């Protein structure tokens, strides 16, 4: 069988990409030893970090699910002059370097920040370097993902169904709850899962606002830099497995649709 030049080129690129993307995973598996990994993971400090990560990622995802869905709805059904600019603005964290996002959050919510200062001086509330800061940083980064998922979910609902709902006497809220949400559920659920995975893995922005607190990605960084390969390996593998399962779940939902 004659193989065309193009097919050969495609095969080569696939192989090289496979090597490049596969090598970190292979290296991680090679570095990881079951005994060391488990003993490092079953440490109280490490388990607390895993708990913090899961807790903050869940909170940030919940917040993003609500706000992202509402913003997605707004930008789909309430298009006005300037909507495009506003949507672009809300999408900025998708492409913004996370460290810049974290720095900007510090400027806004730090003790001397735009909002942080009055909060601190009026209510003695400090946001930075607390669990709330971690949640806000993760929310800041993952909300646009949820907004885009919701936007595309609502756009897929035929316009005539929304019009039919209104013509049958349903107000905007009833139409949202009874028609739009049920018909968009699979895409919204996929959006929530993706947002959770992204929040769990968020590093840059979280790092800037974490203070002494640690999440899994921060712990991996600290341990890797400090030469504690056991914990870094174990936590990395945990994240890889979690991410892999989440992607599988998203694909499964996509296929089910």
């Amino acid at each position, binding site marked *: 069988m004659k193989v065309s030049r193009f097919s050969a080129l495609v095969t080569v690129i696939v192989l090289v990409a496979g090597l490049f993307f596969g090598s970190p995973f292979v290296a991680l598996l090679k570095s990881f030893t079951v005994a060391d990994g488990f003993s490092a993971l079953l440490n109280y400090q490490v388990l607390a970090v895993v708990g913090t990560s899961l807790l903050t990622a869940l909170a940030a995802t919940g917040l993003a699910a609500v706000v992202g869905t509402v913003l997605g709805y707004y930008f789909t059904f309430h298009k006005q002059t300037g909507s495009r600019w506003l949507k672009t603005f809300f999408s900025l964290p998708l492409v913004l370097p996370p460290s810049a996002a974290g720095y900007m959050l510090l400027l806004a919510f730090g003790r001397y920040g735009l909002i942080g200062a009055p909060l601190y001086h009026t209510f003695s509330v400090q946001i930075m370097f607390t669990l709330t800061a971690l949640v806000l940083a993760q929310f800041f980064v993952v909300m646009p993902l949820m907004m885009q998922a919701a936007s595309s979910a609502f756009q897929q609902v035929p316009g005539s169904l929304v019009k039919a*709902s209104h013509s049958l*006497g*349903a*107000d905007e809220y009833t139409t949202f709850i009874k028609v739009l949400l049920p018909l968009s559920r699979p895409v919204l659920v996929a959006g929530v899962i993706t947002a959770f995975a992204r929040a769990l893995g968020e590093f840059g922005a979280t790092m800037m606002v974490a203070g002494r607190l640690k999440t899994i990605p921060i712990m991996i960084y600290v341990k890797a830099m400090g030469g504690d390969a056991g914990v870094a390996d174990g936590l990395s593998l945990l994240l890889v497995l979690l991410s892999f399962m989440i992607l599988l779940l998203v694909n499964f939902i996509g296929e089910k649709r």
Partner: protein
Amino acid sequence: MALILENVSLAIERNLILEQISFEVPIGQVLVILGNSGAGKSKLLEVVAGLIGNQSGKIIFGGEDLSQLTPQARKIGFVFQDYALFPHMTAAENILFGLKSRQAPTTEQKRWLKLVAAELKIDHLLSRFPAELSGGQQQRVALARCMVLRPEILLLDEPLSALDAASRERLVMLMKKIQKKYRVTMLYVTHDHNEARFMGDQIMVVDQGRVIQTGPPEEIFARPVSRFVAHFTATRNILPGRIQEHLEAGQALVEVAGSLLLSTSCQVASQDVWVCIRPEHFSFVDETAPASPISSISDDPVAAESAQTTDNIISGYRISQILPQSGATVLIELMNRGARLLVFASNRRVVEQNLNVGSQVEILVAAEHVHCLPRQPDDIYCRPE
């Protein structure tokens, strides 16, 4: 008491979609809106339903101005072209959606569901989801969903366009029956002239967001005001002609396709005209029939009756094609030195009069069915399809 639109205009992103639309439909009557795709028909329905809000002009029903009311407050039912049934709800849930949104008591919901389902013969489909229903069944459910709300106005946007011929026929009868029974005022959008003729008490022809002609079906079909309307209402013979002599009150002698015809529908000042003759208004002269002043055979009773009065006889044409049509009719193409006429006849007539390709025939057309429209001398010849 009527549904009245006064100078309704609509612009979307600086494009004028509807321009100064005005009409009046007496309560309990049907106005069919006939026009091409993109003519603004569906948008007009959406404006009446309040689904598009930024129009100008007034929409008045029973003396009340609806323009400022929300869609929920208008008591209008809307049947969409794609039925717009909620795919995640059963037929029953779809039908009850409006009543539940209006928080109607459960007993009332059950009573109306039973009543309307029986009326539309969908009792056995209530537990099915839309994906499990045929197009015709979906359309019945969509209609039921509107009818349970007892709307004062029913808007139907090409409700039969996605259905096969048999389902279309059944549903059009059903809709007419329901409309008559409940005396609901109806705006019915279609691009099908047969549907328009059957459903409409009045027909409004629209093109590019403007009203071209409004009137009873017989007037729209017999006396179109423009070549567009003539073409759209399936006047298959639109021929260039020239007035030879103006007679009294709208009568004229017109030269068309090599024949001189008397027209009693010729209110045209210019000499050059388009002559419109519907294919069903011709009848073949039966040479085998007993002698009479003018012997005519027509499948159309109107044409047959008029043939006894003021008929034009057209000679010198040969049959070039006989094309089967739906029902027991054929479309016959007649040619005479490049001039072409299209004539309807029943299969029975074709056999009885031995009409074959190549036969030379004489045809009749009543003077009142020869309708003239003004024509610019440089208008291109519009060859019938």
